[in-house]
């Protein structure tokens, strides 16, 4: 089992994804945490643009980061699945190509912001995605996340 995701690993993602020009955004609770939301989570969730070019860049970046993905898995990522879960690398990573509640990557990217070099979805997109997903664990965290949104908008 991988160790918890760390600041250094997030910075390494930013470095390597930039090297291969991967278009991505931190999303989900991991994104909210980067924005300042004090809560706990287990995985890093990345919203990645679904295109062959970006898929190829993602594969190159994952291999560079040390994820042991097979040729078949590389082809799947290049083709663009909607959701890929990686549990074999230096940290656990979820790649989300089509998050619920967000229409386009371009739209989310235009609303995103950078926190110490880490591209992050806007808090409204994070909330919208969790509302659309509507899992038990999302419903439990949404009231506090919405309160954080109110606080964050006033203080940023």
């Amino acid at each position, binding site marked *: 089992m991988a160790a918890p995701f760390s600041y250094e690993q997030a910075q390494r993602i930013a470095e390597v994804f930039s090297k291969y020009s991967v278009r991505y955004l931190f999303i989900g609770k991991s994104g909210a945490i980067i924005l300042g939301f004090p809560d706990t989570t287990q995985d*890093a969730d990345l919203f990645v643009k679904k295109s062959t070019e970006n898929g190829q860049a993602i594969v190159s970046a994952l291999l560079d980061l040390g994820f042991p993905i097979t040729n078949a898995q590389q082809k799947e990522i290049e083709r663009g699945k909607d959701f890929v879960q990686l549990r074999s690398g230096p940290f656990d990573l979820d790649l989300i190509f089509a998050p619920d509640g967000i229409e386009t990557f371009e739209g989310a990217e235009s609303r995103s912001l950078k926190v110490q070099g880490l591209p992050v979805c806007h808090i409204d997109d994070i909330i919208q995605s969790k509302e659309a997903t509507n899992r038990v*664990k999302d419903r439990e965290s949404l009231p506090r996340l919405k309160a954080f949104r109110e606080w964050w908008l006033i203080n940023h």
Partner: protein
Amino acid sequence: MNSQQKEWNLDFQAAAKRSLKERMRYSFIKTYKPVLDDVPYRSFDTMAEYRKWCEQNLPNWLGYGRSL
């Protein structure tokens, strides 16, 4: 503002005083999640397919389903 919101706002203010590195150290944890962590790689063509898989295969208490 109710007492719950006031308490949360104090949490948010306290967190804002910490560095990103420190916040991430406190926030990212790792515990074993049955089924979910049992294979090195998993992929789904659609999010609907993924949600359905979660509902059918993960223990309810993990919270990945839409109802408990």
